[in-house]
């Protein structure tokens, strides 16, 4: 029997996809095509049978293993669960997180993600009894946002179990001795690294040795992302390779034969995999490593593509849902890119040079993951090639030194420390390279999220290009395929201004409690009105910027702050610090407000000109698109910041939108006569608070839709029920970011469409 594993892996993946999308029609079409093709061309029969068999296996294992996504997940304020801890608990200074295997008969409560608001003193493998609140994770509020709910569901997790007090978590029995020994070795090494190295270096080194980003500063991690070296923190092939080199060298010192090396190598890899908790890249790399060792032991030729495909097939047979896991996709594609593209690209260079190889390897990996990275992270990193040339050996050296120190930490901590100091030095060098590359022009570029179809298209073209090099008859396809890839990339980097021309767009971004409104003019200018803000998380960095990047927006033509309340201005400060902005608009009457200090400082630092806005101004942004300032007056310094909130009226032919900041009812009523009804969109002021209730105004301006931008279950009780009912009485459709997530309104000036991120409840 002769099996071509890459084809088997692809067929298996196809079967899993068919089962995931429940595309039974296409399954039937494919099966029929295969049968007909087999009947007509008998020489393809064995291939078709093998492919069909693998596809059927894929469909079956996915259907058996994965429960369909439930739509009736209910919150339970008090829920008791006992079970075994299934992951290495992490603690970030605020909360401990781990996975719990409950053994519950319901597939939806079989595995829970436990969040303790304290440092839980548990280990992997412990059996515990917990009591807390059972809550399904919220689906993403904004387009392009990371879908945490789907991510967890793909791991068989449908609920978070939130535990507030340590008194509600009890240890029933400790982990089995082997697991607890392995984890204690790991935590001892971890403690030593933290003792010896400064916090920043320690966090980075630990991230490189064990994987994960716990303790690494968010800004620092963003820099790693921009320079394309986050792969160092998802331990994978590089680490397993270094580990094998280290083990092989140690074993060769003892003079063991090939069997000894095989056994030592395999046990070392299994031990390491267990230590880091078997994330998909480690599974992939360890399987490839073991297959490589087995090929060496048995004297077989092990093509890397064969090893990669076989490993992938084994992983999918064990857990088919991993096909939809980002880290599995990234590790398979990046390795696939290196395995398939690198040897081909190398033939373009007549001279063998280490520098060329060092550059071609990250290029091959990058080419293979561009669409996936663009899809998930909206970033393109040409600079990563330079970073990787510089950091590959440095990180390798740091990882090997870290491994050696970890091994020695059990023997003598001062001896181990001797290996850690140079590791720390290498990390400093890596940081210097990262800082240097990040500052280069064009080192990274934000790109809009491509469609799933677009991503698939890219991979189809890439596969075609690869096959055309292997099969003589297809050779003519090579150049067109490469050309198509190039065009694909060109389209990817097109700025957001190019799309949806002639349409005005108003997006109420879901920032929780707060306002953030993106306006796109028909001619492709972008204006951001407010940027959200929260005491609990960085709204600007976590929500607003990712949304702008998702749209492929690289610069804003104007940023407007309606008033300086935290839930409107904090995120804005973050946005102007990160993204080029042409000008910043503030209400003239609040120019002196103390709460604007941070915004002023950042604007000064980024040299952003400030425009003061007051009633009576009309900004003619484009021929037929204008923005009128309705309120406040230029010299109106009485009243608080809410009373001095900007009110802006957007108009594009028959489409109008009134953005009202946080103004109270009186101010709203005062402009009523200057708004010609009917209004298309009214953003209700102050998140729908009772103080902004203006029944007569709603009747007067007759909005077609009223938007409330508020946080889910916010402590202020926004929006007030009376406001909601008054708006409903006026005949307007109510749209709420707290219930429906981001709200997007598009109009060509005559018609408009409303899109909500989360489907409205019936």
């Amino acid at each position: 029997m002769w099996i071509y594993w890459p084809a088997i892996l692809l067929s298996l993946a196809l079967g899993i996809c068919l089962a995931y999308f429940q595309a039974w029609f296409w399954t039937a079409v494919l099966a029929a095509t295969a049968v007909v093709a087999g009947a007509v061309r008998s020489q393809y029969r064995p291939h078709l049978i093998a492919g069909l068999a693998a596809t059927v296996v894929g469909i079956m294992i996915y259907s058996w293993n994965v429960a369909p996504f439930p739509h009736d997940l209910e919150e339970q304020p008090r829920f008791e669960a006992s079970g075994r801890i299934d992951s290495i608990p992490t603690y970030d200074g605020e909360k401990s997180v781990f996975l719990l295997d409950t053994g519950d008969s319901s597939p939806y409560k079989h595995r829970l993600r436990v969040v303790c608001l304290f440092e839980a003193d548990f280990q992997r493998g412990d059996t515990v009894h917990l009591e807390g609140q059972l809550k399904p994770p919220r689906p993403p509020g904004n387009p392009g946002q990371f879908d945490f709910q789907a991510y967890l569901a793909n791991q068989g997790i449908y609920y978070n179990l939130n535990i507030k007090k340590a008194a509600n978590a009890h240890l029933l029995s400790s982990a089995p001795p082997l697991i607890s020994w392995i984890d204690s070795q790991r935590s001892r090494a971890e403690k030593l690294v933290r003792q010896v190295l400064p916090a920043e270096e320690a966090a980075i080194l630990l991230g490189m040795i064990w994987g994960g980003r716990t303790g690494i500063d968010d800004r620092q991690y963003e820099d790693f992302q921009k320079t394309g070296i986050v792969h160092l923190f998802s331990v994978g092939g590089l680490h397993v390779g270094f580990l094998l080199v280290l083990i092989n060298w140690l074993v060769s010192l003892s003079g063991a034969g090939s069997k000894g090396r095989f056994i030592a190598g395999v046990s070392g890899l299994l031990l390491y995999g267990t230590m880091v908790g078997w994330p998909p890249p480690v599974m992939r790399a360890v399987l490839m490593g073991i297959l490589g060792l087995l090929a060496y032991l048995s004297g077989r030729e092990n093509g890397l593509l064969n090893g990669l495909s076989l490993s992938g097939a084994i992983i999918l047979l064990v857990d088919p849902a991993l096909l939809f896991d980002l880290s599995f996709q990234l590790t398979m594609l990046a390795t696939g890119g290196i395995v398939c593209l690198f040897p081909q690209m190398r033939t373009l260079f007549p001279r063998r040079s280490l520098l060329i190889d060092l550059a071609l390897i990250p290029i091959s990996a990058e080419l293979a993951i561009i669409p996936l990275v663009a899809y998930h992270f909206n970033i393109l990193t040409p600079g990563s090639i330079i970073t990787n040339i510089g950091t590959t050996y440095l990180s390798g050296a740091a990882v090997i030194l870290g491994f050696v120190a970890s091994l020695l930490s059990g023997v003598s901590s001062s001896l181990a420390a001797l290996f850690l100091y140079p590791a720390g030095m290498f990390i400093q060098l890596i940081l210097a390279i990262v800082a240097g590359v990040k500052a280069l022009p064009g080192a990274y570029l934000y790109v809009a999220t491509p469609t799933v179809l677009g991503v698939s298209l890219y991979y189809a073209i890439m596969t075609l290009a690869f096959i055309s090099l292997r099969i003589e008859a297809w050779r003519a396809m090579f150049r067109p395929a490469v050309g198509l890839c190039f065009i694909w990339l060109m389209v990817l980097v097109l700025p957001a201004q190019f799309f949806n021309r002639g349409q005005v767009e108003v997006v109420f971004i879901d920032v929780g409690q707060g306002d953030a409104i993106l306006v796109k003019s028909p001619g492709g200018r972008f204006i951001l009105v407010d940027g959200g803000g929260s005491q609990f998380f960085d709204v600007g960095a976590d929500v607003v910027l990712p949304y702008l990047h998702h749209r492929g927006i690289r610069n804003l033509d104007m940023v407007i702050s309606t008033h300086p309340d935290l839930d409107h201005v904090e995120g804005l400060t973050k946005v102007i610090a990160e993204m080029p902005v042409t000008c910043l608009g503030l209400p003239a009457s609040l120019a002196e407000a103390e709460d604007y200090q941070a915004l002023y400082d950042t604007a000064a630092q980024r040299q952003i000109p400030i425009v003061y806005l007051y009633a009576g101004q009309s900004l003619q942004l484009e021929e037929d698109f204008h923005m009128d300032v309705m309120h406040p007056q230029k010299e109106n310094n009485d009243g608080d910041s809410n009373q001095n909130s900007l009110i802006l009226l957007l108009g594009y032919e028959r489409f109008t939108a009134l953005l009202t900041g946080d103004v109270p009812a009186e101010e709203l009523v005062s402009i009523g006569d200057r708004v010609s009804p009917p209004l298309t969109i009214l953003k209700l002021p102050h998140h729908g608070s009772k103080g902004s209730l203006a029944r007569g105004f709603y009747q007067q301006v007759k909005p077609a839709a009223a938007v409330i931008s508020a946080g889910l279950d916010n402590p202020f009780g926004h929006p007030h029920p009376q406001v909601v009912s008054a708006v409903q009485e006026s005949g307007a459709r109510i749209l709420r970011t707290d219930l429906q997530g981001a709200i997007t309104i598009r109009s060509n000036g005559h018609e408009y469409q409303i899109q909500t991120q989360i489907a409205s409840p019936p």
Partner: protein
Amino acid sequence: MLDPILDVLFPQGACCICRKPGRYGCRQPWCQECLDTMIELQKSGSNCERCGKYLAEGNALCSDCQSHPPRFDIARAVGPYEDPYRIAIKVLKFMGRKYLASQMGRMMAQTIKDEPRFGQIDLIVPVPISKSSLQVRGFNQAALLARKIGKELGIKTECGALTRTRDTPNQTDLSKEERERNLACVFQVPDSTKVEGKNILLVDDVYTTGATSKECTRALLDAGASRVCIITWATGRGF
């Protein structure tokens, strides 16, 4: 026994000799063209009656065997030490493709079956390699071939019957005299009871000047073996 499983895990996608793409495995490691070339080469000259070397002029014995008749009965090889035979042995030895030994051993066994002058064989013994080579390569290619031949012919293989007492410089760059000096008293039979009175088949990968084979033969006969025959994968050309 594991071979079919390993064939599935590690399918060979290219001919191990000319890298022509196709479906290969343990039973068929090379393509039809390479196999045809090998068969062609087998008929590319007459063989010396004693040492099996390929001779151009149709003599019965090569000049070596005429002047210094070897102590072994007969030596034969599957083919001449030229591509693809040469590549096959290099791929096996230096790229560690041990699975090749299976088909190569089968072909060596066939050569023995086709040559009645090998007569009765009681024991198969591979030529040992030096400790340092074993350390680097991880295996003795002659032992792999010997085991496969033993399995094919149903004869016992004794890999430890002959040992190497010391490491010797590589034979490749040495002249005939230097090779003989290099190997003097290198091979030993640690337990002569194993070979006493037996007809022995000595297995090696390549027969060039015959220095190794002759030295091994000497050690085996001195230890009491009654007769020694030699089979190698490839042999040189001579006069």
